[in-house]
């Protein structure tokens, strides 16, 4: 690594001058003295003119940034400034009237005085202290000639005296015996931010020499608040430049031309007089919300001579185009063979505490050897990997170490529950049926209705696929371990039917499930049944028939409205599913059963005193799930969740239908035992019997950030997350949860006792895929699209 440090070079030059001066003595031969004198002059000149070299470099940098359009991402926000003229202090022993920059007093550091005037500041007394990023200190100092090592210290301490942070900056100046202005900046790390901490500023006279301090100005800076949503964003921080096409953040592009290239046709030609290559310049706020700690880069270099010396470097300039920092990795000719592409990697740690989002960062190749060379394929990675989401685990490693771990209710980690892949002979393609490539392409956007529509000895479920332009029915044949098509005249039959709400249950109590479809807006409903049995040998088709149809008030004494929610479950305790309608606006409800006279009769109806809490049925803020979750209960239980709009926490309630009173009994689930997200409005819930116990449970899928599937079960306290669900047996490493878009369809396809999952997994080529609507799927070789069946057994 190297550092552009003028002080270092001047110091080096002076040291050499001094040494040579020592060497030249009268006894030295005249010729030698002349030579050495000449060298002395050269060195002296180099020292004198060093600032010009430095300025030249700076002007180069200025040139680099000259044409950039600046945006304001954040500028340093002064949180407060304080000034101490040290005139009215009475308790400070360092105060003296010997000298003062202003007034009559200053703080004197001397042989007897190691620490000078101290400023104490409670963190909570700084306005918006939580935004504190840097502290600028400006002070006046008078130093006697022999002062070499004076420091100014910022210490941050906890109330119990424990030191949290300690840093010092040099009080340095070449001027002596006069007042000079000293400026310094301290960075404040996030872990040092606490309202109870105390900041302590003081000069430190390490050498116990004489100097004076006066007029201390302290400015507390924070970064300006940025839109809170930005904090949730994850910026792309990886950039690659092959120099094949112009890119707006590449400047100094005159050498980019066709010829020898590491990739493509073009590369950057750097002449022997050219110090800087084309550079990539970005404003820090373009790719992060806080200044980054490092930048990594790699580039391919092709020297045209043997003696190339280059440095891959990062330069930071501020809005005023002052160079704040530059550092890089020097590679010399031994590692850069002529006429050969060599890759150079570089990592530069940045003084992030002192940077602003408005500062610019440039990455370029410094042609230190001033030789002709080519450069291509520059890759830059800004900053570190994003922190994982969420809060830190509260688990104690010592507890785990001592084998005393006991799981906390609804808190991770959860025991994994693994679904095994069940072979369905479709070669893991997206097509459900084996060997048929142009049918049965299950699309995740399709609507799927699952039920035992066709009579069969095993009473297995079939799946009805309702696509945009097609309707199909499939059933699983366990003897052949494959799905077959049961599609009859479905497209014709369903043509023109417009029913947004669909439910499946054996409403007519004939032993097979029916499809009940309702259009609330148009106040109409229709129930579909399927004739004939499923026959895996003959491959017969099922024929849909309209077993009931109605308009207007199709449910006795119930006026359909847009606010109605439909839930199917066995509330009456006869092990047959009923239809519960809840008006989410007023909490009125009715349980309906399809009677033998082909009417929907109310088994129970709400009255003014036993309405349901409508907020648990608000379609925009709630979610319901019903099932036979308790084996000791006669009927099904309805669980509902809603988000508390004030504290954004999820709330849960259980609704148990009291058969005797024909009324729902609502029980709020203690938030202490229902922490975390069991299920919510963004979850998809799949009720079934996935495990080995007799009662049902449900799978809760949340895909808002990742594929997050939990097995939720019920106990006396309510609901709890029993397991986190994963898969095994999938081809290669194509775990369904890795896909961009996963659709689950649960059904008793394989066994009447246990529920299986039909899993459709796809990747989407849309550049702005939102997780729901995909216009074009992408069949990646790393993760090919597929439809598979998973089962616990």
């Amino acid at each position, binding site marked *: 690594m190297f550092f552009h440090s003028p002080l270092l070079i001047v110091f080096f030059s002076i040291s050499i001058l001094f040494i040579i001066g020592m060497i030249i003595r009268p006894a030295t031969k005249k010729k030698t003295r002349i030579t050495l004198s000449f060298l002395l002059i050269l060195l002296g000149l180099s020292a004198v003119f060093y600032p010009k070299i430095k300025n030249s470099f700076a002007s180069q940098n200025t040139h680099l940034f000259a044409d950039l359009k600046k945006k304001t991402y954040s500028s340093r926000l002064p949180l407060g400034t304080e000034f101490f003229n040290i005139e009215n202090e009475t308790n400070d022993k360092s105060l003296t009237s010997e000298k003062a920059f202003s007034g009559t007093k200053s703080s004197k550091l001397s042989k007897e005085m190691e620490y000078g005037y101290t400023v104490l500041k409670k963190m909570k007394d700084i306005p918006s202290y939580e935004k504190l990023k840097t502290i600028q200190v400006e002070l006046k100092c008078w130093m006697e000639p022999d002062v070499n090592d004076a420091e100014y210290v910022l210490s941050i301490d906890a109330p119990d005296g424990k030191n949290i942070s300690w840093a010092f900056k040099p009080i340095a100046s070449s001027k002596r015996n006069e007042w000079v202005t000293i400026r310094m900046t301290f960075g404040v790390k996030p872990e040092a931010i606490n309202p109870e901490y105390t900041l302590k500023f003081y000069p430190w006279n390490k050498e116990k020499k004489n100097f004076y301090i006066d007029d201390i100005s302290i400015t507390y800076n924070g970064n300006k608040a940025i839109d809170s949503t930005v904090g949730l964003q994850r910026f792309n921080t990886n950039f690659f430049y092959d120099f094949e096409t112009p890119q707006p953040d590449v400047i100094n592009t005159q050498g980019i031309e066709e010829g020898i290239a590491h990739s493509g046709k073009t590369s950057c030609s750097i002449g022997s007089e050219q110090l800087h290559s084309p550079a990539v310049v970005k404003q820090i706020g373009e790719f992060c919300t806080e200044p980054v700690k490092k930048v990594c880069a*790699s580039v391919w270099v092709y020297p045209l001579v043997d003696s190339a010396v280059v440095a891959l470097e990062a330069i930071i300039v501020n809005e005023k185009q002052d160079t704040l920092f530059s550092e890089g*990795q020097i590679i010399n000719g031994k590692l850069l063979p002529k006429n050969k592409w*060599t890759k150079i*990697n570089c990592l530069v740690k940045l003084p992030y505490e002192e940077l602003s989002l408005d500062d610019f960062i440039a990455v370029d190749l410094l042609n230190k050897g001033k030789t002709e060379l080519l450069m291509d394929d520059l890759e830059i990675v800004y900053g570190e990997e994003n922190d*994982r989401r969420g809060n830190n*685990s509260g688990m104690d*490693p010592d507890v785990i170490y001592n084998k005393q771990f006991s799981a906390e209710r609804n808190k*991770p980690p959860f025991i994994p529950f693994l679904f095994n892949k069940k072979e369905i002979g479709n070669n893991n393609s997206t097509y459900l049926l084996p060997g048929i490539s142009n049918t049965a392409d299950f699309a995740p956007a399709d609507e799927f209705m699952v039920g035992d529509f066709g009579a069969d000895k095993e009473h297995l479920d079939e799946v009805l696929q309702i696509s945009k332009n097609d309707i199909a029915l499939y059933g699983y044949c366990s003897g052949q371990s494959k799905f077959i098509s049961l599609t009859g005249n479905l497209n014709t039959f369903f043509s023109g039917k417009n029913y947004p709400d669909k439910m499946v249950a054996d409403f007519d109590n004939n032993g097979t499930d029916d499809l009940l479809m309702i259009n609330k807006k148009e106040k109409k409903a229709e129930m579909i049944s399927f004739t004939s049995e499923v026959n895996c040998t003959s491959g017969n088709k099922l024929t849909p028939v309209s077993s009931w149809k109605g308009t207007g008030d199709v449910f006795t004494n119930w006026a359909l409205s847009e606010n109605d929610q439909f839930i199917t479950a066995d509330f009456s305790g006869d092990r047959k599913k009923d239809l519960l309608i809840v008006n989410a606006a007023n909490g009125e409800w009715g349980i309906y059963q399809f009677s033998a006279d082909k009417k929907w009769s109310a088994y129970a109806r709400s009255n003014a005193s036993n309405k349901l809490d409508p907020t648990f049925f608000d379609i925009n803020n709630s979610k319901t799930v019903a099932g036979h979750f308790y084996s000791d209960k006669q009927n099904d239980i309805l669980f509902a969740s809603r988000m508390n709009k004030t504290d954004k926490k999820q709330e849960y309630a259980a609704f148990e239908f009291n058969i005797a009173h024909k009324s729902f009994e609502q029980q709020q689930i203690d938030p202490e035992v229902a922490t975390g997200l069991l299920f919510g409005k963004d979850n998809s819930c799949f009720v079934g019997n996935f495990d080995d116990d007799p009662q049902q449970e449900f799978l809760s899928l949340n895909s808002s950030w990742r594929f997050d599937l939990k097995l939720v079960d019920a106990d006396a306290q309510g609901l709890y997350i029993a397991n986190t669900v994963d898969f095994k047996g999938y081809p290669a490493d194509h775990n369904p949860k890795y896909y961009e878009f996963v659709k689950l369809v649960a059904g008793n396809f394989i066994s009447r006792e246990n529920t299986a999952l039909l899993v459709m997994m796809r990747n989407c080529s849309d550049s702005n895929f*939102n997780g729901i609507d995909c216009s074009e799927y992408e069949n990646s070789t790393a993760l090919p699209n597929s439809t598979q069946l998973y089962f616990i057994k």
Partner: protein
Amino acid sequence: MKMFTHKNCFFACRLFFCFAFAAFLLQSCKTKDPQPEAAALSCNDFCIQNFNPVANWQTDSAKQKTIFLDYVNSVDGFTIPTVKQVKDGVFFLSFDLKNTSASTKKFYYKIYYQNESYKFPEQDDSTHKEHPFAEENFYGSWEDITQSFKQTEQIPADNTFHQVKDYFRIVGNPRAEERYSENGQNNRWKRNPRVGNYSFLLVVSTEEDLKNIPTYIQNIHQKNKDHFANPYYYFLFDAGKDLKSSVVQKSDYTLKVTAQPNLGSGVYISDYFFPNPADKSSYCSSCGQSPELFQSAPFQQFIDYVDASTKMYNIPVIGDVIKDNYSKLDYNWNKNFYQKDELIPTYIRTAKDHPCQTVFSDSANKKIVIKNPKTTFGDWKKESVGIITRQGLTYGKYRVKVKMTELLNKNGVWNGLTNAIWLITQGGGKWNYRRNCNNEGYMETYWGGRDDKRVPAIDYSEIDFEILKTPPYCPENTFPPIYKNPLDNSRDLKKWNVPFPDEIVNNNDDITVACTNWDMACREPKKFGVGCNPLTYEGNTFYTHRWDHWYRALTEKKLESDDELFQSNYFYFEIDWRPTEIIWRIGPEPDKMRVVGYMNDEITSIPNNQMLLIITQEYHNTKWWPGAPYSQDNIPFPLNDIFGEVYDLTIE
């Protein structure tokens, strides 16, 4: 890395001479069968011939005899030979002497031995004086240090050779140095005999000439101006070679001493590593703390030093990386899509509570098996395992035949383990100090930072093979690999499943063999350096790397095929620790070894203290290994036990 102290020792066999050799008197007699081909060496008053230093040990070649270190009852130090190996447990020496003077007289003789394989030359090439480090050579003489030159019986001037017989044995701390003694007891185990070839030097003198031999040569425990004087230098290069009435004969024979402990002799459990184990249920006849194991086991179970930096927040995944072929896709998903509160906070664990559960000594197959135990839900652990020798040695060519766990699966993903074969100081403090570092000193501790105090001498030393998945640091332009930052956007595969850099992908199936010498930042070597520096040995260029002037270890790295090293039935790893250089070799057979690391005393301080050998399968915090492509906390807990087997250790 890891420090410990040596066990206490017993001294059961110290005085066995008392009864064994009461009848074996110094004698002279007429040689019955002088060997005419044996040339006699003569001086003014006598001549000698047929010098045989180890008459009771068979030769295995024209010039060499080989003996293996006897590990039974060796905790107090090795003796060569033992009563198990030869009757009476001593080497018989003999020579024929003919008195050529005018009168009957007694003569004076002494035998010296010296380890020739691991020594500094007696004479310094540049000064032609005694090499400053020649006093460090392992040489000795009569076990009883009060015994100077012994005298023969009266030998008549009868123009006839008379045979002189005696005995000796090679023992630790032969100069009875105080630094290795405690409360007047010579702890010979603190300076064990070295392995390798021993030469023998017979010096016979007249009473008159004996007066010309300095007493510190006659008595090797004495010092000359605060330094021991190497008698080989005195007699072969200095004034001793010009004595008029003395004969100095270096034997034609060398004795090769090799250590090859029986790995089926059990594993000992020491109080040092296991001060208070909660679970002793796995103690058995081949592992535990029985007196038999104390006396015979060459290895003990090793416990890695675990510091707070090993605390990790590990993904809550239990899997078999090798068998289940955990892929880069798996790795990347787990890296991006677990929240912090789902992670398992844990330390790298050790077996300190349950000795013998994870190490086994197989007496039938003479091997030791180690295993990293599997994890179950709720009992998450990444537990390191290992064994360490019990007898310290200085220098030697340590070659192990092992079948350690594979580190990479067929996808090139690492299972998080580091296979390590390494030497570590036997500890102990001053008695085991390294040679003083004369340029600012050593960093005082191995764990401290840049501000650590520098001291002239320390006892810490370490020489490592560490084999894991990490990139080379050299040459400079290749490091660090540039890893893209993933985005945890599950709706865009390309954003979270970012590819690894070319440097990693191109070496997908390779692991890194890291060869390290902990020189504790001693700046005395004339080419001490930081950063990457090339070093050529036998036509191969190795790059040494040191992070900074205060950094205590110098490392070389070489990429090797994981399949070759760990998929085969066994593989050999060799640390050749010599006084002025260290050579790391690996290979499929002892005669097919290749050099993977080389350092010498021009670039690094070579340790000269006593060390132990450790074989471990360790979990490391990857923060120790900048640039490592796989982070330990993103590698699953092991679903199955992970085994390693040690078939042979040969030190020669």
